[in-house]
């Protein structure tokens, strides 16, 4: 009976369930909550989800390729903090940007190298590199938890930029989503991500450059994190490195997984990220309007994440043939 129930659920598929739930919450909130269905609030929903969505795009490329990047939040916060600190110390803008860009690239390459060539599980590599990036930048390169954006810098301008009263990050999120969609769907390299995620050994046997592609994915996610960090600094006019210890990382995983991108790789795409982001954005906004304290929001979010993972586990059971010993 259970398998029957499951197979019927499979027809429904996770993405559609989430979409339906999102629409339902949206409809309910629109009716029940005053001020929810208004242009400013809708814009703020989209805006609140933009940075998270951009991070989730980076994460999704890695996850589709059967990996995970737990160092994203550290890279996001610490790279920008270092950049702002360099600017504050009076370094020329392009030199500082170049230096930080090189640093981000190096961490992405290091993550990718350890995963691809040293065969270390991605979760440990990125857990360790996240801890290292935070610790190193915090203790050696910057002097306080929060680093402000210098007066009149282009990042501050960026934060104030509006087109048709819609903030710039929304457009950026849209552009990046479009680019990622085209990359994953229509380029050779994009298709390779799916093949390598579905069955890395087979992909390698066929002759795809599985290892260089792996490195590329971690570089992409590191650069996405850097972009998201710049946007965060733009809207807040500073960057607080304490965000590394917050639940932001789990929110990224939540947005990625809940839309239907399986953690076992090879499944999903940009559309799933958009659906996941929509659900989380609507939910967080509704919870804030209802005035649920942040602590309870965390509990609700994490419980939903657990349910999503259980659902994912039931719908995409681990393949014992391609799962490797030690693949935890």
């Amino acid at each position: 009976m259970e398998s029957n129930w499951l197979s019927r659920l499979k027809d429904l598929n996770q993405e559609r369930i989430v979409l339906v739930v999102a629409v339902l919450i949206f409809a309910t909130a629109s009716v029940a909550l005053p001020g929810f269905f208004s242009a400013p609030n809708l814009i703020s929903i989209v805006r609140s989800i933009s940075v998270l969505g951009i991070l989730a795009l980076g994460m999704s490329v890695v996850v589709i390729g059967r990996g995970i990047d737990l160092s994203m939040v550290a890279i996001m916060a610490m790279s920008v903090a270092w950049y702002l600190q360099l600017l504050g110390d009076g370094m020329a803008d392009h030199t500082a940007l170049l230096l930080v860009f090189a640093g981000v690239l190096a961490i992405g390459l290091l993550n990718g190298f350890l995963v691809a060539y040293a065969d270390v599980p991605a979760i440990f590599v990125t857990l360790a590199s996240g801890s290292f990036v935070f610790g190193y930048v915090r203790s050696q390169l910057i002097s306080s938890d929060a680093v402000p954006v210098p007066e009149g810098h282009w990042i501050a301008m960026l934060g104030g930029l509006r087109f048709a009263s819609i903030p710039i990050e929304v457009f950026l999120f849209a552009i990046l989503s479009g680019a990622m969609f085209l990359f994953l769907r229509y380029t050779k390299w994009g298709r390779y991500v799916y093949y390598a995620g579905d069955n890395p050994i087979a992909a390698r046997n066929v002759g795809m450059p599985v290892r260089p592609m792996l490195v590329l994915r971690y570089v992409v996610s590191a650069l996405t994190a850097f972009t998201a960090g710049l946007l965060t600094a733009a809207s807040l006019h500073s960057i607080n490195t304490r965000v590394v210890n917050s639940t932001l990382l789990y929110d990224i995983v939540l947005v990625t997984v809940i839309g239907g991108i399986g953690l076992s790789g090879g499944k999903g795409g940009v559309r799933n990220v958009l659906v996941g982001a929509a659900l989380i954005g609507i939910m967080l906004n509704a919870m804030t309007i209802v005035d649920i304290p942040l602590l309870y929001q965390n509990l609700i979010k994490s419980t939903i994440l657990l349910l999503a993972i259980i659902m994912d586990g039931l719908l995409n059971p681990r393949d014992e043939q391609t799962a490797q010993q030690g693949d935890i």
Partner: protein
Amino acid sequence: MTFREQLQAWRYNLVPDHVIGEILTKRWTDNAIPFLALVIVVASFGSAIPGFFKLYSLQESTRQLGEFSLVVTGLTVVMLGGGIDLAVGSIFALSAFSAVSMVFIFEQPVWLAFAASMATGATFGAINGYLIGFLRLRAFITTLVTFIIGRALYDILVVNFGSKIQMSMASSDTWDFIGDGTILGLSVPVLSALVLAIVTHIALTRSRPGWHVLAVGGSRRSAHNAGIKVRQTVFMTYVFSGLCAAAAGFLIATRLSGAGPGTGHGLEILALTAAVVGGNSLGGGRGSVVKGIMGAIIVMVMTNGLIRLGYGTGTNQMVLGILLAVAVTIDIRWLKNRHKVLNEVYVAPVYLRMGEAPSAVPGSGTPYALNSELSGATHIGLGEVEGPEDVILDRDDHLYCGTRHGEIVRFFAPDYTRSEVFAHIGGFPLGLAFDRDGNLLTCVGAMGLYQIAPDRTVTQLSAETRRSFTSIVDDARLRDPNDLDIAPDGKVYFTDSTKRYDAHEWTLDSIENRATGRLLVFDPSDGSTKTLLDGYRYTNGVTMAHDNKSLFFCESWACRIHRYWLEGPKAGTAECVIRDMPGYPDNINRASDGTYWMAWLGMRTPSFDLSLRHPAMRKRMARRLPQDDWLFPNINTGGVVKFNDKGEILHTMGDLTGLAHPMVTSMREHKGELFIGGILNNRIGRYKIDGADTGWTSNDSYWGASK
């Protein structure tokens, strides 16, 4: 001998290269790196921090270490079972809160607080265990999420009840003692960590549930196939880990008498780093509690040391990140390459200059001259048997042989066309012999000495001897029992060809040529096994002399036959009776005319003899070339050789056509015929011996005529 060759001989025969390979096969070498790290960390921080080694300072700093070790021990067990538990941090915090609220809000006794802590840990562990064990979710991501849920719960609880706890007036002496007191100079956390470590260690190494955990971690599928309840085992590891974290949480609750927002913060990455730095393998199966504890000490000393030395925010995370990355990478690389390293260094050839052999060329006129007499043999069981190393006949003329499939096959007299599996052994039966009561005794490759009674019950007689004092790898176990014979008093004399390789790796043993073969005796009266002689190059065939006062055994790679005296003035000593033969001897058996048959498994070649004088070349060869390209004893030509008590060679029979019996490992004379076996052959040969006594059987010769 040139000077250069002499140097080679000294270099390869006196320097014990093989020891390196043998040490590397030891599992404790895994501990070497973490242990070294431990010593360095403790020494450097101990000297950098003033008063580090003072008793009071140690008592205080080890309280935290004790709590931490409890958590790491739990995590180690989960990791051994092939999982991971990141939720330990929030379980720790939640159970600390349970204990504190029991005592300070509900004002209950301490034991109830402890029970509340453990219940919290068990519940949380059970949730993790259910999700990962029974629903088979991914351990890392699942425990990550339950960790966040636990943390969110804890934060809510602390915000709502934190002030109530602080304002409470409740107090308890037991509570304070657990938090502050010492027993025999040891604090309660250290004591409980020690007790838990010892109990867990014993459980893991010496109990059924512990073995199940290791088996599941080592290979899930094999464990399942072996009938282990995999899901339940995985479930239990998480419950155990939950309980360990809960105990640690209870202890910190008593120590701090409160629960703040920082309790257990970052504990999961600390514990994970500790477990991995200690050398516990990700993915399970390899590791131990001791490794976990070593890792715990390294991480604790390092992180606390950095704080006490006054390094700023973030330094700890940086160091932890590096530590975790380096440890995981070393672990993965070492696991992946260990066998390669071992292969590189294990084969350690020695120098040997073989003596000049008489010619075996057909027509050369020596008694060794080969011919094609054996090609006239008829065949038994052609294509039905694989690898009859030895053959033997019973008093009813039935023919027995061992096969590669681990069975003893019986062919029925008189025409030997019908056969049956006489007994299933499970290992490759090599040498065979009948005792006085008609029991069939056999040396089973890699297993030991076994007896098959006429009613087919299989009994193990011996699988080990006394361990020698200088051994690194335990040489008590018989690795390659090869041939046996039985004295009139029932004692079984048998050979164990090599201590360095398993039976199927005999080519490597021939290339290494190290003298590690043994002659042993099994005494059925008390069941004991003793080593009589040690240090021969591949001891192989054994047979009792016709007068039963001595026995002959051969040394395959040295092409020699020795005589070991059981009685008389030379009792207990061996002397070489035939040396420098042109072929490699195998089994030896009695012949009807008072002489002996010896099988040759192959012939010496000038090229291999030369390579024996060049150990470095053989080492390179074994390392760099695929097995098919190795130079090793020629086994395409063998034969049967007859010799007498004085060691004189009387006659040689071969099969130069190579069609029927290229390699001979055994032959048995029975009623005027010779039955021939070969370990790589697909048949048993039957050869009529001219002029032999057609009434003679070896059973009569050993045990007297049948009644």
